[in-house]
């Protein structure tokens, strides 16, 4: 979701401006560029959207596949000044809940308070943001700063909220009386919108913020307040132990194929061409994901690829041309499907263009080229340390003694003949490794293994150097220097992570987080025979 990227604002700024940025999800692509609101003199307007109101037709046409939901919300919110029950709008991520609500309020042109629980990440900030928006609205321009009070507890928040709401509602009423027929009547209702409501559950286990906010309408007992919750988890997630007031629910289903087609066709310069592109692309991708945000990311480079043979992009494709374009695109399609969510790096693009031979050869050749080299630099001893951590994580500790002899070298294991017993044991071991993940190990074991494999490596190097006829003093290779420093830098890079301390020994245990593919790559880069050190392989 695009909202994840929204940076929590400092309390000094209004949160509304962030709320206006947040709905710029890819779903209705750049429909309305939300201008970030500047601090204007007319504070009283700050509860309205800054843009011109839109008509019902544009509202509905800007959300393909959302007409029934929008009409239902409009019906339930009701006409001007009519009280309402709390609403809960739910639906999977990237189904256009937030933007639909915000646009509906732009159409209705009524005052509202928006609080996103992702940007306001603690109760205090959430309360602060709501109160700030209300106070900014309710206070008299002449009076100046009424000052936000400090509050510690939810009850103080409720008290302040009640006061602020009454103030704001009175201000609205006054304004309606004063302006008379000059302006459009915007009613005296204030709506509170809580976005990302599902996040509240994880905030604090003991605090009862969820029942508090769910019952806020009942608690305030002000009929001029409407409450709307937006949540990506279903209403049953809020059934708490002593039950709670159930809001009226509205469900936003995930987009169907036709809806997605409608969404992607919006604002296209050459609809015919894009439609033919979609007819090729949409169906296979739809089987993998139904989220608009991910699909739009995946389609962008593919469309570039699709258009490559064309000189003029405004051309209307006929059947033969469509087929040609499709043939051109097909090899890329399977590749793109399989790294659907990887952000393509520059170099892999290059290799893709070079390896432009045959349909299925591409992927494999890419893989091989990529797998041979590491795409970052690591020092020699860090590599050895990483490998020893990998070995320590993969092998059971009891096997160390049989893998390494006292001189540090590798013992040639005698392989058992494949009896049924050992086969079974092997299977269960494999199962365990799949289930348990990498094992944890104490620092001493890591250092011991590191010592063993580096001594082997050094002796190997020496032998090579003897063969070449050069004489180097032993130990000058310095692989074992500054091991602890390397370890901490590997920890920082998240290749090795600390996992809880052992209850008996009290020392910290480590765990290696890299996968086998990566370990093999590292081993290759230093010519280390990793496979012979791994148990069962």
């Amino acid at each position: 979701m695009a909202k994840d990227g929204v940076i929590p604002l400092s309390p000094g700024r209004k949160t509304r401006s962030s709320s206006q940025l947040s709905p710029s999800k890819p779903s209705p692509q750049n429909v309305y560029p939300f201008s970030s609101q500047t601090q204007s003199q007319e504070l009283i307007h700050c509860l309205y959207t800054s843009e011109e109101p839109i008509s019902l037709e544009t509202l509905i046409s800007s959300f393909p596949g959302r007409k029934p939901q929008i009409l239902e919300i409009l019906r339930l919110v009701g006409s001007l000044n009519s009280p309402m029950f709390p609403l809960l709008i739910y639906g999977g991520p990237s189904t256009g809940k937030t933007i639909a609500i915000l646009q509906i309020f732009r159409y209705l042109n009524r005052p509202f308070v928006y609080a996103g629980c992702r940007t306001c990440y603690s109760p205090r900030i959430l309360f602060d943001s709501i109160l700030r928006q209300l106070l900014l609205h309710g206070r008299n321009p002449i009076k100046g700063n009424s000052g936000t009070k400090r509050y510690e507890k939810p009850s103080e928040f409720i008290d302040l909220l009640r006061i602020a709401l009454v103030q704001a509602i009175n201000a609205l009423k006054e304004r309606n009386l004063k302006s008379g027929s000059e302006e459009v009547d915007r009613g005296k209702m204030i709506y509170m919108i809580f976005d990302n409501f599902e996040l509240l559950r994880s905030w604090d286990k003991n605090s009862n913020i969820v029942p508090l906010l769910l019952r806020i309408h009942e608690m305030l007992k002000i009929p001029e307040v409407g409450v709307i919750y937006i949540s990506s988890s279903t209403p049953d997630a809020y059934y708490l132990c002593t039950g709670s007031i159930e809001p009226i629910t509205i469900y936003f289903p995930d987009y169907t194929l036709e809806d997605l087609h409608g969404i992607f066709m919006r604002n296209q310069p050459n609809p015919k061409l894009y439609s033919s592109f979609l007819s090729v692309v949409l169906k296979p991708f739809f089987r993998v994901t139904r989220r608009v945000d991910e699909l739009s990311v995946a389609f962008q480079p593919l469309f570039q690829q699709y258009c490559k043979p064309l000189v003029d992009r405004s051309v209307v494709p006929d059947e033969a041309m469509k087929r040609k374009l499709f043939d051109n695109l097909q090899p890329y399609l399977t590749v793109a499907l399989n790294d659907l969510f990887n952000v393509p790096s520059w170099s892999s693009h290059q290799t893709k263009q070079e390896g432009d031979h045959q349909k299925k050869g591409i992927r494999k050749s890419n893989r091989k080229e990529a797998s041979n080299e590491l795409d970052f630099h690591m020092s020699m001893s860090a590599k050895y340390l990483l490998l020893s951590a990998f070995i320590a994580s993969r092998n059971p500790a009891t096997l160390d003694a049989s893998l390494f002899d006292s001189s540090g070298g590798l013992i040639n294991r005698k392989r058992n003949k494949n009896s049924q017993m050992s086969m079974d044991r092997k299977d269960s071991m494999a199962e365990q490794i799949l289930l348990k993940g990498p094992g944890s190990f104490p620092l001493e074991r890591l250092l011991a293994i590191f010592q063993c494999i580096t001594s082997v490596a050094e002796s190997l190097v020496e032998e090579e150097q003897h063969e070449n006829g050069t004489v180097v003093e032993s130990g000058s290779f310095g692989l074992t220097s500054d091991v602890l420093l390397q370890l901490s830098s590997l920890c920082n890079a998240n290749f090795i992570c600390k996992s809880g301390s052992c209850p008996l020994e009290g020392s910290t245990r480590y765990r290696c987080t890299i996968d086998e593919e990566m370990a093999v790559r590292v081993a290759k880069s230093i010519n280390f025979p990793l496979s012979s050190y791994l148990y069962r392989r």
Partner: protein
Amino acid sequence: MASEKALDCLRRRLCDSSFVYSAFKSTPAGNYSKLKFLISNTITEACNNSVLLLGPRGCGKGAVVDMILEELKDEFPEIISVVRLNGLLHSDDNFAVKEIARQLCMEHKLLFSKMASSDDNSQFMIDMLRECGLAHKMIIFVLEEFDLFTQGKQRLLYSLLDAMQTLTSQSVVIGISCRLDADQLLEKRVRSRFSHRKLLFTPLSTEDMQRLLEHLLYLPKNLSLPSKYVKEFNSNVNNILGDKKFKEILDVLSSVDNTISNICRFLYHAISWMHFESGLLTLDGFKNALSCMQRQPMLDKLQGASILEFYILVCMNRLGSREQNSFNFNSIMKEYKAIQDAYKTSDNYSWSVCLRAFEHLIERELISFLDNRMRSLSIEYRPVRLLLSSQELHQGLKSNSFCPAILLKLLNHESYR
């Protein structure tokens, strides 16, 4: 315009809880009359009392208290002062005492000191109770979400109920809770000071329901609406209420939840479907409202899943039915690859794509991690569990039109063997 006005009037009624519950004012054996009698008796006899109102949510406990307090304030002006506490807000004892002191100060126009200690506040409360008792004034404490006050040491409840043991004070403590065993939660020392008066609120009976519907849906004659329209509207409502199909709808609704608030939500939904031109309610509106209230969230969530996500769910279900007690993404992938090898479907995706779909499922809350302890472990090793039953999965797959037939076969083969 008349229709708009009528709709607005109906909505206002539904949202105004005192109007909704005034339908049951007149019943002599109802909780309203009992509670009112109890409190007014306590006032006239100048004694102490305590009562618990128990019943499921949405049965009008709070609304009845509100109504009675409003009326008593008119009946006995200058005598009653009300202190309201809510368990959600004031479950902390010290804070609750402070809040009581604040509200008493507000009520009696005294200066409230924010800096006063908890001891000062509770002393102030006891003093106030005595003073009020001497002046023949009544303090009514309303404790909403009563069960939440019993969580800690119950100091607040003890000091409140203990203060009421003296002859000088005059007060009523009204506890409101949706837990029927709320009085069992009290400590021994608190319970012995409690009067053990309990009023049980129950959901609606059929006759009550009929009366409530008539009370809410008929338009009044004195409203500034054209009388012809009102007549037409009311006869239409009468027709609908008498309709057999409407009775069926009501039966379905009340068999799930027949509390007053649920009926109100249903009506709110239904009147929003009011026919705009004629301004009359329709039976279809009630039907639509019922279907909106009968959503099954799990199936909704399943409907949003993509094919690949369905594959992963089926794999998990197969693993689960094989009595493998714990599995994680790696073992799911093993199963997935086995299926792909065996059937050679077109949905063979790479590891990273599957991991992403797996993450989507977690986000959708169709599956979840078994425990939150192993956060340091990467996602593919953490054990997960399926939050769906195989029947639900079966139903979801069946109702999904574009789902490949092989999936259903894979699911059935394993689970209904």
